[in-house]
């Protein structure tokens, strides 16, 4: 049985964080992926490398810099204060900001790959059929890159759910505001509340497995039906 003292708040908070982060990532990541897929600027390599940084950096490094940048003494902190947003560290908004950065490559790269595989030719055909730039992007590029978007959404969401280091560094552990699932598990273990930790950890394990199964399952079946 689920312990009567079981706290559902971290689960809802995590889902809210992952949903908002994924939506933000689609808004930011799609144009960024589009640009990366077709630009011939020298900036392509440095920007691509910067986007990929969270893949290799320990999350605590990213979290540490974010904390410094967005803190009261940091340039980001000055900016958010000047804009009347207050300080982001140890708030839900700060979590969203950190998660967005941290999950960026998981969203940008699949979409970028999909756009690159697509090439310019279908878009050229659309242009000769009277479709303006936005029109051909939404009527041709996005539908043809759909598998890339699906992968991006699933990975972006799941990765945000699973993160720990950045969240702990920039969000801390404020119940109801920044105490997400992964942090809650850590707390329970620290407090020797293994029953609660089991429920959360087991839930995460099942969730992650199902997500990956959904991601890899259909594409396998599609390949079979094609051959």
């Amino acid at each position, binding site marked *: 049985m689920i312990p009567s003292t079981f706290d559902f708040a971290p689960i809802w908070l995590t889902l809210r964080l992952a949903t908002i982060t994924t939506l933000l990532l689609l808004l930011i990541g799609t144009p960024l992926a589009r640009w990366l897929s077709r630009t011939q600027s020298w900036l392509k390599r440095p920007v691509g490398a910067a986007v990929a940084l969270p893949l290799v950096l320990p999350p605590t490094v990213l979290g540490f810099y974010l904390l410094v940048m967005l803190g009261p003494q940091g340039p980001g902190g000055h900016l958010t204060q000047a804009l009347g947003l207050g300080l982001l560290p140890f708030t839900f908004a700060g979590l969203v900001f950190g998660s967005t950065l941290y999950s960026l490559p998981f969203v940008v790269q699949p979409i970028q790959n999909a756009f690159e595989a697509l090439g310019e*030719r279908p878009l050229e*055909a659309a*242009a*000769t*059929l*009277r479709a303006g730039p936005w029109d051909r992007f939404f009527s041709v590029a996005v539908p*043809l890159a759909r598998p890339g978007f699906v992968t991006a959404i699933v990975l972006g969401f799941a990765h945000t759910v699973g993160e720990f280091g950045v969240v702990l560094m920039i969000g801390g552990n404020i119940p109801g505001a920044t105490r997400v699932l992964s942090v809650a598990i850590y707390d329970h273990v620290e407090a020797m509340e293994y029953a609660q930790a089991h429920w959360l950890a087991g839930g995460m394990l099942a969730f992650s497995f199902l997500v990956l199964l959904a991601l890899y399952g259909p594409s396998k079946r599609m390949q079979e039906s094609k051959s």
Partner: protein
Amino acid sequence: MSGICAHFALTLGKFHLDAAFDAPGRGITALFGPSGSGKTTLLRCLAGLERAPGGRLSVNGEIWQDENTCLPIHRRRLGYVFQEANLFPHLDVCRNLEYGWKRIPQAERRVGLDQAVELLGIGHLLERNPAWLSGGERQRVAIARALLVSPDLLLMDEPLAALDQASKADILPYLERLHDELEIPVVYIGHSPDEIARLADFMVLMAQGKSVASGPLKDMLARLDLPLAHGDEAGVAIDTVIGEHDESYHLTRLDFAGGAISVAQAPHPLGTRVRLRIHARDVSITLERHGDSSILNVLPVTVSEIADEGPAQVMVRLDAAGAPLLARITRKSCAVLGLEPGMAVYAQVKSAALLA
């Protein structure tokens, strides 16, 4: 100003394009030249797919590009048929056809869905996914899709290049119907002289990024200063009218200003306009009209020009009441007959191919 006036200069890496032509505002204009001569680049410039600042293009009086204007691709009223059909894989054939059609105002729709479907014979394919079409079917859908935006100019980049011989033969009649039934000017990149002789009315010859010469197809095919009038494929195209069917010998007589030519019986009714292709290798010259030859087709002609064709042969251009003919004969025959420009002789046409 009517017609298609184009001038584009562009550098892409090591390739320089500098091409200009004035082509008539109706009929099919062929861009012809060896691969790498810039045909596709020029066509892409016409469409706006290649940005060429400083280029000029007007289509039947409407300026698409000059010093001050440069319409983006989707504002140019053109249709474009790519070498590979380039259909949208996420849409079925019907939605592919509707894609451009839906995007033009109703008042501008001169080609109806049913008309395009019928013209290209694709009615049975409408529900299919492009992935399940044959190469020829795909290209026919692509042509119909381009026609459905009711273009003022149709651009076709080697629409037959990716197809096998059977699919080519499958599509050519549709292209001819297009030519005969719609008033849309076409700029067409073709890769074989025979294909172009069959379809085109006007020709722009390209070499190394430059437009070398342009003019009506019939003149271009017979110009001895151009490479087209040399080699094994050299030959002219003559527009004729079906004059008589000879049922007893299964022959059809084709009339044109320069005389009449008989060919194996054609299915067309009397009065149909058909195009004949006569290769230079199938024409010989005599000084007198011989009644005792097996060759049926003997035309009175005038020698207009003689040019070298390798060490042993010469290419002779003949004039049959305004229609040029080419004859490839040996240098020795030329000397024995004493051929000179201005001489009246007879051309014996051993075979002629009906193109449509």
